[in-house]
């Protein structure tokens, strides 16, 4: 009797022990992997921010349907940067320190991507953005970009020259955001204009989120430019275009935008004739992606820089699986082979990173607003639909593996 009771107790203990060991493993298998998202769901670029987040959500669903990462689903943990750098930094700190994400994606606006990138890089959190300021190359090895940078996109100036080929002299003015990307745009545009023999008459770096731009706009118009290059955020575009219209500017064909999608929510009379170069979504998977997006959300995205965030989620998921780890440094090192082998929807599909973790090439296409809709546009006499701008030298080469620590030190010491 005593032996029987003892055996039963022993058996019961063994069974209990086994169940206790098994239970955590089952919970761990189902526990989602958190991926941080820092994007402007409100604020100056809210339209683009919401489009971008929808692209990320679409990608996350697909990743989970394909088995997730390390056998677990991914979960997007989102912080709204409100289009304000301070809110962006607060969000970055929260994602790093409280949510403890190994990777974060977002920062549509360069004004957010830069300071947030500094936070994430310092805390060794992989940060994947599609902002375009050149200064992203200076932060550190944990920062990646799935769209091209400003110095690759100065070809808008070439586009303007080709579109005004009948003019002997072309006077250019610039209207850009008063932050890092705006300063980059201004610098590279002026430089390219000088190289092409065009006359630069005025630069305006406006205060993002401002409510009254009349004085600034008056100065731009007083300079009598033939073409105005712009890169403005969607909410600012609402005010700027309205105030230009009230000032008597009803023909907007002199406006050439680095981001024509920013005007996408405006009524037709505020956009008629605006042209520009948009980041393309023409990869082999692009059509299928656009159809899926429309099927899920009812309408197509308005901002051309939203699809790179879809690619960002997929690259991150692939990198985590390649790294077979949630250690952020291992994920970082796996980002290069992941992007090298991934066929994207944005650009022309090639999303390979150069040694800085940035795109080796940028792809754009001409656009024009007609009756409130953004349509493809080809400069007269041109046969190209897509302009590819690849860096010269090693920066234009996508890498299939991460640089070494020594190479990182040289890269970032030189900045």
């Amino acid at each position: 009797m005593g032996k029987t009771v003892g055996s039963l107790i022993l058996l019961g203990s063994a069974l209990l022990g086994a169940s206790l060991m098994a239970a955590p493993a089952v919970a761990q298998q189902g526990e989602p992997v958190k991926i941080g998202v820092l994007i402007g769901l409100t604020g100056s670029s809210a339209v683009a921010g919401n489009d971008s987040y929808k692209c990320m959500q679409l990608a996350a669903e697909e990743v989970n349907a394909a088995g997730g990462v390390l056998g677990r689903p991914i979960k997007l943990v989102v912080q709204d940067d409100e289009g304000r750098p301070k809110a962006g930094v607060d969000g970055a700190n929260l994602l790093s320190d409280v949510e403890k994400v190994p990777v974060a994606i977002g920062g549509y606006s360069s004004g957010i991507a830069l300071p947030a990138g500094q936070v994430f890089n310092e805390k060794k959190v992989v940060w994947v953005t599609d902002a375009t300021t050149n200064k992203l190359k200076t932060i550190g090895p944990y920062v990646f970009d799935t769209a091209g940078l400003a110095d690759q996109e100065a070809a808008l100036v070439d586009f303007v020259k080709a579109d005004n080929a009948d003019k002997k002299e072309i006077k250019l003015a610039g209207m850009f955001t008063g932050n890092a990307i705006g300063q980059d745009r201004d610098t590279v545009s002026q430089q390219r204009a000088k190289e092409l023999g065009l006359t630069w008459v005025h630069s305006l770096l406006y205060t993002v989120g401002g409510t009254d731009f009349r004085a600034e706009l008056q100065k731009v118009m007083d300079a009598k430019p033939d073409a105005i290059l712009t890169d403005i955020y969607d909410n600012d575009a609402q005010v700027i275009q309205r105030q230009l219209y009230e000032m008597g500017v009803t023909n907007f064909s002199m406006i050439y935008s680095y981001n024509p999608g920013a005007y996408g929510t405006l009524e037709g009379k505020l956009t008629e004739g605006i042209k520009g170069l948009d980041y393309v979504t023409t990869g082999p998977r692009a059509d299928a992606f656009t159809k899926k997006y429309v099927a899920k959300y009812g309408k197509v995205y308005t901002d051309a820089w939203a699809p790179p965030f879809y690619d960002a989620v997929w690259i991150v998921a692939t990198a985590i699986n390649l790294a077979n780890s949630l250690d952020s440094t291992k994920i970082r090192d796996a980002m290069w082979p992941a992007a090298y082998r991934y066929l994207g929807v944005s650009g022309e599909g090639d999303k390979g990173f150069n040694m800085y973790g940035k795109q080796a090439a940028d792809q754009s296409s001409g656009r024009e607003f007609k009756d409130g809709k953004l349509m493809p546009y080809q400069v007269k006499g041109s046969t190209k639909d897509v302009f590819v701008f690849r860096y010269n030298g090693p920066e234009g080469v996508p890498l299939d593996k991460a640089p070494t620590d020594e190479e990182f030190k040289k890269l970032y010491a030189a900045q």
Partner: protein
Amino acid sequence: MNIAQVIVSSLITAAELGIIAIGLTMTFSILRFANFSHASMAVIGAYIAYSFNVKLGWPLLLAFAVAMLVMGCFGIVVDRIIFRVMRHAGDLTPMIASLGLSLAIQYSVQAIWGPQFLRYKYELVPGMSLFGARITGPQLGIIGTVMTAMICFHLLLTRTRIGKAMRATATNPELAQACSIDTEHVIRVVWFVGTAFAAVGGMFVAWDTQLDPYFGFNLIIPVFCVVLIGGVGSIYGAILGALIIGFAANFGINLNWGPVLSLFDLTSAGSNFSLPVAYKPGIAYMAVIVLLLLRPSGLTKRELI
């Protein structure tokens, strides 16, 4: 520089600041404290008008009129609940309470209407040409309405019993009470008119630009500057102060300062130099400092009229 356009822009700025400042200086004149929540009243008024115009589909001017009346009543309620109990607590306590109220209002607005930028619904038309400047119908309406409001307010103060009672209360509240003036009734009228004016100012600012929860914060300092320049407690001083701030800020960024700077060898002769537009608020504050150095009590005497 298009002088006519700069004058128009200056008048619009002055009108928007002036009507808000009148309410602030009136509150100060009678209640004797700096009401930091005044600009927040402008914000709520603008958002309430938005709800009437966009959510309920009312015509814009009707939305403005009703929102103005609603806000006037709201001002009375705020006084009843918060500031009445502090009547005899000096000027510091209600000032601090108004600061807290201002923050509470800002975050409540954000919670209710959201942090995104909003716009009123109305037909957009190009501005008309007027002596070389471009001005839209709404902008003419803003200037005209503010001028009309000021004339009506002057008539209220000088030709009506309640206006006389307000002036008496502002001059000496105890003596006014001794003369059987119902000072609490006067205070209610002041809150109603002051808050309604603030709401109108907020609606005009939002109409001319756009709505965002932080625009009250951006208004409070220029409005206080207007009141300080004009003389705290002086209605006509507030109007004068608004004109000075409006013109200083707009002319300051449009003028070519090259010839002035070349006199001090800071630029070469004949060069153009104009201040970046980001300095526009700074010009207004410099004007305040210069004028207060010359006349610390403001440009006009401290009295309601």
